[in-house]
């Protein structure tokens, strides 16, 4: 534990940091100007690492995709066959042929484990690096007991330019929020589907009938009539200050050319859009690439329906794997072709894997004791396999890794020391990662 008043590497003493951490709660410790200054300090410039978290909510069946067990009995191995991939020795599912062609661009952890087989709590564990405690209520949105990876990244690195540092799409996973890191680390949430025909960000542009001059006029009038803006009342009420911050951000976003470009998926070459797949998953990945290109530091894609309990193989073969095949392969290829892969960490995983033994409904149930996580870019070596599962993929056979280690590795690659502290609402110091280990064998 850091002793009191030891400066962090960002020059903040613990006591200062403590006030920032609880500013939203107590409201009176940090003026808005201070808070903005603090953010400005965090704000980097130019390029720098980014992170795309492709979360397959429900639980990707990795025994049917990235860690197949063709030697095991038919009650376990399932109907799919493995195929060779670009990297000798790495086999993937026959329904992921495009992914097989890019296995040199990412690596696989085949000994991933956390032991929590409940959706909500496992999601929280995977998205924050912290297993939730007993008071967890998965039904809340947000339900964060600890900040999501994106929130930590946003808080530590700040925004690049006028574009928000952390974006969730489509919609925000209930564990995607900032918890005690407060409003500046809340994601910008794209609620609409990037695959929808006239996709646009709700409310990002004024109604068509209101032209730019009139917007400027309105804003000018607002500045004259908003009597609590920069008032003693606003200074004394943190929530009023926050609202002003968001209004400023919203204005910056509206007028940001970077944002306008980033969100305008229609500008993409239709062929490239096809390559990603004309699906929510595919177009979300494409939009993520656009966002990263424009300076967003973390994009979390929450793709649902991976909970393949019944008729799982049909769903995987006909629907989910073909979509993943296009989206994931196009994302790695596209990032690489643009020179962005070196600076963009990509993680592809569900909250857990699925049971080795096939159930009576031709599907598989939740399995958190062992599954595979794919990750690449941003300094991660491609074409490697870390760890190994046992003969039936039911437990790690060697080198088990968990969500804590994944977080530590991602933070490390983002240039954030994983063992720094944050403070909870109660003022309790909490490590960015819960004793996670950086997976140096991948770097």
């Amino acid at each position: 534990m850091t002793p009191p008043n030891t400066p962090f590497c960002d020059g903040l003493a613990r006591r200062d940091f403590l006030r920032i951490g609880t500013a939203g709660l107590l409201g009176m410790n940090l003026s808005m100007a201070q808070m903005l200054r603090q953010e400005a300090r965090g704000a980097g410039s130019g390029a720098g690492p980014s992170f795309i978290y492709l979360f397959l909510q429900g639980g990707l069946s990795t025994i049917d995709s990235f860690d197949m067990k063709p030697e095991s009995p038919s009650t376990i191995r399932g109907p799919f066959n493995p195929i060779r991939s670009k990297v000798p020795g790495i086999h993937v599912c026959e329904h992921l042929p495009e992914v097989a062609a890019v296995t040199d661009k990412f690596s696989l952890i085949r000994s991933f484990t956390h032991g929590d087989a409940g959706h909500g709590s496992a999601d929280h564990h995977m998205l924050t690096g912290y297993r939730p405690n007993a008071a967890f209520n998965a039904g809340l949105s947000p339900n964060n007991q600890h900040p999501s990876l994106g929130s930590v990244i946003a808080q530590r690195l700040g925004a690049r330019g006028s574009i928000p540092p952390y974006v969730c799409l489509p919609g925000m996973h209930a564990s995607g929020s900032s918890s005690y890191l407060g409003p500046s680390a809340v994601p910008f949430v794209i609620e609409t589907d990037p695959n929808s025909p006239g996709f646009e960000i709700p409310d990002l542009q004024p109604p068509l009938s209101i032209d730019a001059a009139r917007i400027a006029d309105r804003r000018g009038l607002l500045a004259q009539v908003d009597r609590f803006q920069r008032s003693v009342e606003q200074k004394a009420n943190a929530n009023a200050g926050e609202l002003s911050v968001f209004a400023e951000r919203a204005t910056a976003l509206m007028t940001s050319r970077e944002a306008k470009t980033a969100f305008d998926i229609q500008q993409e070459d239709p062929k490239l859009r096809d390559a990603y797949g004309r699906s929510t998953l595919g177009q979300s990945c494409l939009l993520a690439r656009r966002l990263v290109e424009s300076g967003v530091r973390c994009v979390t894609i929450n793709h649902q329906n991976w909970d393949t309990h019944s008729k799982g193989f049909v769903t995987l073969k006909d629907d989910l794997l073909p979509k993943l095949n296009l989206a994931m392969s196009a994302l790695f290829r596209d990032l690489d072709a643009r020179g962005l892969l070196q600076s963009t960490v990509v993680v592809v995983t569900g909250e857990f894997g699925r049971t080795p033994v096939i159930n009576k409904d031709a599907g598989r149930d939740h399995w958190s004791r062992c599954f595979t996580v794919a990750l690449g870019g941003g300094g991660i070596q491609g074409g490697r396999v870390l760890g190994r599962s046992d003969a039936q993929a039911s437990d790690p056979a060697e080198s088990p890794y968990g969500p804590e280690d994944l977080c530590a590795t991602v933070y490390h690659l983002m240039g954030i020391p994983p063992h720094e502290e944050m403070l909870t609402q109660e003022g309790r110091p909490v490590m960015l990662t819960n004793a996670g280990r950086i997976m140096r064998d991948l770097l």
Partner: protein
Amino acid sequence: MKTRFSTLKCGAGWLLAAACMLAVPARGAAQQPQPDFIHDVAPILSRFGCNGSACHGKAEGQNGFKLSVFGNDPRSDFEALVLQDRGRRVMPASPENSLLLTKSASLVPHAGGPRLRVGSREYGILRDWVAQGALYEDKERPVWTSLRMEPAGAVLGFARRQPLKVYARSSDGREQDVTWLAIFHSNNPALAEVDEQGAVTTGSLVGQAAVMARFEGQIAIHQVTVPRPGAPNAFEEPPGVTDIDLLVHKNLRRMNLRPSEQVDDAGFLRRVAIDLIGRIPTLQEARAFLEDTAPDKRARAVDRLLARPEYADLWALKWSDVLRVDRRTLGHANAFAYYQWIHQSVEANTPLDVFARDLLEAEGPLTQNSAGYFFKVTKKPGEMAATASQALLGIRITCAECHQHPYDRWTQSDYHGMRAFFEQVRFKKTGAEEALIADGTPKVTHPRTKEVLYAHPLGTPMPEADPSGDRREALSHWLTSPDNPWFARNMANRIWSHFLGRGLVEPVDDVRASNPPSNPELLTLLARILTDAKFDQKTLIRAIVASQTYQRSATPNPTNGEDELNFSRALFRRLPAEVLLDAICDVTGVPEKFPGVPLGQRAVQLWDSEQQSYFLKLFGRPMRTTACVCERSASAGISQALHFMNSNNLQAKLAHAEGNLPRWQALPGGSNALVESAYLACFSRLPSEQERNAALAYLAARPGHAKEAAEDLAWSLLNTLEFVFNH
């Protein structure tokens, strides 16, 4: 080896022969009892965090060694230490080589690092315990009965240090200094931090903090008060103060704060209308109120608002959140029936004790006794008990389902004793009709000890048997008694919080020993007003809104700009999602049309929290999956700001041909009438000269575009902080 294990397992007082020779230190240890696990070792495991939820206390243990979280199950902890891992953890023949000692002192690799030093007091106790045979419990020794801290409270300046002492009293009447074994926790570390040795250090914030010490299931509280520094800021009691104000002022003097001025008429009317009926005043109401010169006009406005039907809509919405009118769980028809029961109760001004009784004792056909849906939505007896405790008493007992509450005194016996009241509840279907029945004699057992637990309310001793008949009647009788230690106080606190933006206990549904009220005397007074009025909510509301405390301005003075805890000024509160949307509709004169709901029904009147609405979702409407008031979010985001600035829906309301704007433009009096109307409708006040001139100049500069200019003016007013907040 096998023999030793089995002997240890069954004989708590058993002493290892070899250890006898090692035992008994020279210094008159004849009076010293033999150290045992229960009295000597378990407190050390808790104090040094061994059984914390991040270490060996987590569900799967740590590195093969599992302790029950917070030492909840001492017997299994003892067995884990003494029996497991081939006896390497506790080796009486060679105490210093026991893993218990080598690990905790980090003499061998320990992921948790060194927890205690070789040669320290705690090390010595662990060693002696091992050496003397690792006894489980000496039943002759007394048990802990209470805990206190010295001093019990302190008034400190900035950056001051105050060491605390913790004394535990045992059943033999003796007191012992247990400071070194106590675990400390501050509820406001920014204001007052406490270190592991129990020394409090204040920061540079004004306010109060509660520092809790925990020792072996007992809790004590030390209250730290940090007044505003500087010369004492005495103020006279102004004329017309109420009992509520006197207690608030007493606290403000202690904190060296001075209250803000009283809010002006416009500010009062807008505030009290939002708080009482969830609507901002119409421009006619605002104008009439401003022009009224009667000295009692504020009290009469309160009377008028309390009689309005929207009062019931607003409070039905509040209770629907807490009591979980959840359509996803209940289905349309059931959720609507449940809502109607709540709405009718509020409309009839049912006393709160009767309301709680109706809820807790609901039985029979659900269509006629729709309060019974409470038991449908909470499903299981444990959840019924936990939800009822949180919603009606403000006490969260869910922690105690599996272990002792870490910040309160609730044990598994308390939780399961409460659960036992609801075990009889079942549903019987006859045809299309479903009825709630509570009968039979189901037994509840303690999940660990397996002893039978009879239904008993929180904090009361367990009786010899379950109550006969419907057990819930016994619970509701206890709960709604004026002497109940929590019910009236919690209801009063919820009402206070609604009007002042902050509970005396905050959050209002997290009443704990370690979360004491910021002004205990005031909470007692409010509860007494409520019980004296036989739980008539409106009586307490009248008392609160008539106080100078409620009627304070939001403008801080030089003393209270940083105070959010002591009610020295009015706090900014963002309008709840439904109220905010209705306010936009009221200002523009264009109602919102919700899918499947008749036009004209306002957002506050929606019974279904799943009702499709981007606005309501965006502005934090709760899901109603728990009783927690935290589900309703007032937090802001970029998307909300974008919506206010750019929403097509808002623009359509501004541009609507039959909305208020064209009406105001057609008023005699020209632009000036438009500006005044817009100000009155948004803020219940007239514009200042400066504001009037700015608005008039804007309108005058756009000849030929009067409609657009009026829209721009209304857009600007709706986008102000003044509009979205109650202040």
